[in-house]
């Protein structure tokens, strides 16, 4: 019912037709409000999927802790990788939506203070003789010193992890919670550098009867608490994207600001975040672990998921984890009505990036993992990554053109002679 109120009757019919056939029904241009509505519906579905997958992960972790074995550990790892699929596709919501950006650190923070959480390899670096501080890890210590204060860590509850282990509320919080904390606890450190292989934590790390690396009960408690927190955080965000949720209302409040938020999300994730921070920086530093998902070697899937999410924000299509396909009014429709050539260009570039990401995934699955691809001197690996970066950079240019075409660009400045033409500045003669 709400849909009809928001869309208007004629449009609602058009959308029904579109949804039924899976093809554009006719070239009626949707109202920006309808585009925003669909964008929030997709967000809701994606976060719900991320939540569902995290709940499956939580169950798999329960099974691992109940009966630690190679089999249950393997199943938990598989559940973690599955859980990342819908989450990666939500990342396009982060930029442009302050509600998501403020929350993101709790669930996806990176890098991680591994030594604070659990044992780390003593052969690290050149100072193995001075590794007394490795035992500062909270799993091994019921009292730890944080900022000079003895902190009671006898119970590793979700509240302890989110509230005490990390200063709540600050930018610097939360490096011991979220997906990557769970990842670390399932895989352990990847000690293979730029060679093949991921983390190799044994299942017996969770077996109180046959415990490796000590403190299996506390490790289990930490893992369960981190997983519980992750589920709670995702539930919170899924609720925020419900039809009357805070994030939904924020997007729908102002059509122009809402459309800008979509495009800001697409552009920022393409350019600064994935092409820049997550891919180019790793290539530049050749750091084997300057990658997302460094413990599990799942990185190429993440980048691919981000690219799929970016395309989805433009074309309004999403395939849920149960196979349901969603589509509806999108930026693609708006741009097509305004400038068909630009729409074609945008779609073409999104496809180019997706192809490059597919090649990246293919290489990851058949030849070598992401941390090997970024190694110095690995020409083919480097080139495969660079191609995806190039695709992301190139699509950013078109995103900027879309912003201009929809009149969402620079604000109009008023009140000064020089501002009839905002680019008018003092120049050399």
């Amino acid at each position, binding site marked *: 019912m709400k849909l009809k109120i928001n869309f208007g009757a004629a449009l609602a019919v058009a959308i029904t037709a579109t949804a039924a056939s899976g093809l554009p029904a006719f070239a009626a241009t949707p109202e920006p409000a309808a585009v925003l509505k669909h964008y929030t519906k997709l967000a809701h579905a994606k976060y719900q999927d991320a939540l569902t997958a995290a709940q499956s992960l939580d169950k798999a972790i329960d099974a691992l802790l109940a009966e630690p074995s190679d089999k249950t550990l393997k199943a938990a790892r598989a559940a973690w990788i599955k859980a990342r699929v819908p989450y990666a596709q939500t990342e396009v919501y982060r930029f442009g939506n*302050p509600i998501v950006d403020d929350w993101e650190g709790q669930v996806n*923070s990176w*890098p*991680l203070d*591994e*030594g*604070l959480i659990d044992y*780390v390899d003593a052969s*690290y*670096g*050149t*100072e193995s003789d*001075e590794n007394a*501080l*490795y035992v*500062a890890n*909270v799993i091994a210590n019921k009292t*730890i*010193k*944080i*900022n*000079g204060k003895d902190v009671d860590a006898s119970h590793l509850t979700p509240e302890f992890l989110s509230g005490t282990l990390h*200063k709540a509320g*600050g*930018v*610097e919080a939360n*490096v011991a919670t979220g997906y990557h904390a769970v990842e670390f606890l399932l895989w352990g*450190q*990847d000690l293979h550098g730029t060679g093949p292989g991921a983390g190799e934590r044994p299942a017996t790390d969770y077996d109180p009867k046959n415990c490796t690396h000590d403190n299996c009960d506390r490790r289990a408690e930490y893992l369960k608490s981190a997983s519980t927190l992750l589920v709670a955080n995702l539930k919170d965000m899924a609720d925020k994207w419900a039809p009357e949720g805070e994030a939904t209302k924020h997007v729908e409040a102002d059509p122009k600001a809402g459309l*800008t938020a979509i495009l800001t999300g697409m552009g920022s994730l393409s*350019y*600064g975040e994935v*092409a*820049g*921070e997550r891919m*180019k*920086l790793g290539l*530049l*530093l050749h*750091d084997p*672990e*300057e990658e997302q998902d*460094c*413990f599990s070697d799942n990185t190429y899937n993440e980048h691919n998921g981000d690219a799929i999410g970016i395309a989805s924000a433009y074309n309004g299509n999403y395939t849920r984890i149960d196979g349901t396909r969603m589509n509806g009014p999108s930026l693609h429709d708006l741009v097509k009505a305004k400038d068909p050539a630009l729409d074609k260009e945008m779609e073409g570039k999104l496809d180019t990036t997706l192809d490059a990401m597919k090649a990246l995934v293919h290489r990851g699955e058949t030849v070598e993992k992401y941390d090997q691809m970024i190694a110095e001197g690995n020409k083919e690996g480097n080139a495969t990554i660079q191609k995806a970066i190039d695709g992301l950079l190139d699509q950013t*240019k078109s995103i900027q053109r879309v912003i201009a075409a929809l009149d969402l660009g*620079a*604000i109009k*400045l*008023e*009140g*000064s*002679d*020089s501002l009839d033409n*905002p*680019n*008018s*500045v*003092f*120049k050399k*003669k």
Partner: protein
Amino acid sequence: MRKGAATPLPMTGLPANRTLLPAIAAGFLIFSITLAAADILSFPSSRTDLSPEELKRVHDVVSPTGNFLKAEPYEAMQGGALTAIDKVNRDIFSKPSASLNQEQGQDFHLGNALFRKLWVSAPSSTQASDGLGPLFNARSCQSCHIRDGRGHPPEEAGAAATSMVLRLARTAATPEEEQAVRDFHALNFPDSTYGVQLQDLAVPGLAAEGKITLSYSEEAVTLAGGETVILRKPQYGVSDLAYGPIDASITLSARIAPPMIGVGLIEAIPDADILANADPDDKKGTGIRGRPAIVRDHRTGQLTLGRFGWKAQNATVRDQVADAFSIDIGISTPDRPNSHGDCTPKETRCLSVPTGVQKRLGDTEAPDAVLPLVTFYSENLAVPARRGTGSSDVLHGKEMFYRSGCVACHTPKFVTRDGIKGSDGKDSPQAFQLIWPYSDFLLHDMGEGLSDGQQVGVASGRDWRTPPLWGIGLTQTVSGQQAYLHDGRGRTLTEAILWHGGEAEKARNAFADLSKEDRQALINFLESL
């Protein structure tokens, strides 16, 4: 490479490449005595980058206006062609210079990623990302420069202060130290235990140095027309000291993180144009002196003009960035190679903590690409366009700003140097821009009320660098709160103005004597910056 306990504690302001120092120290000393005697004279007195015709145009365009009926040409574009004309929201301080090409744009974004990067304690799997601390005030640049804006004093007792730090320093105690200050080799001297700054955070397993204590006393000020403003005067102290007492000779100076916008443009202002406003002996008889901060460039050791930091203690953006990495985050860079940050030999446990140096990635904790990228990023954080420059209210406020004498130090405009190269070695986007920072970048005696008693090079405890005002009207938008002056004590622009004393007392009084409407107009003008 490990910089262990044997590494001597650096004196603040020493050139970074200390290994070179002993070899050249003798020659340096003779050289610098001459320079010290004629420090200001050694700088060019007029700019040499322009033709006489261009110089005249520049001179005309930067002359203070007398017309407040309409906005000046180019006024809204306060960062010149680099001005951000984006929609105003909380990210408005994070926009790149408008003129970057795509390659530079990517460097900007990589720098941004590093600016936001949370460094973690060593050892960790992310070999390029570890090395935090061991003592630190923040885990990332962004933690203090929140959305590239300004920091604030701690809100709750006992919490880490993060975006405010306490500098620890004493004056010279021996003839040798006095000489070092005279020669600009040292700005002041650190505490023998706690170093140059109190770090209130530490890596797990290590005690943080202590906590900042902060309390306020209130004082009511009555303005013309009867309006009352409550000023809060802070008292700072330290508690929970983990490594014994701080030396009695040490003063505490609280500093909040300043906003990052426009710093590349500030670096591009010609020395001669800043020095033209200096009047250390008050020859003009205005009561406003303005002294240049003479400091040494970290890398070259050359005497140069300080422009960055609350005391103008650094000459370049890169020097400022390297200091922040080293002292605030505890990450070593080629310019500040000590991987134990601000640990001192008396903090033995601190010096035994693993560093994040990976030989494969370079000799310091931050891989070599990091410092240039963060520097480039910082240099290209754009100044946002002004809002409402042509409105009669803002123009009236501008007139009040001029008439109250604020522009005696808050110099409205400069034209940056022409034909310069950026830190990336390419033609600088910052070259030849008409900019409106509203600062003379000189040191001024701001009176006893703002004094913290801490000498920094040529600046006494009462001296502060005039901070640029551009973007100040967006403080609330970006930071969600307002905290002005070096320690964030000013909760409103009015409070900040009322704290002005010393050379600025006349202007402060002029403001206080304006009618309520005129004062509001002046504030509205500031809000439009």
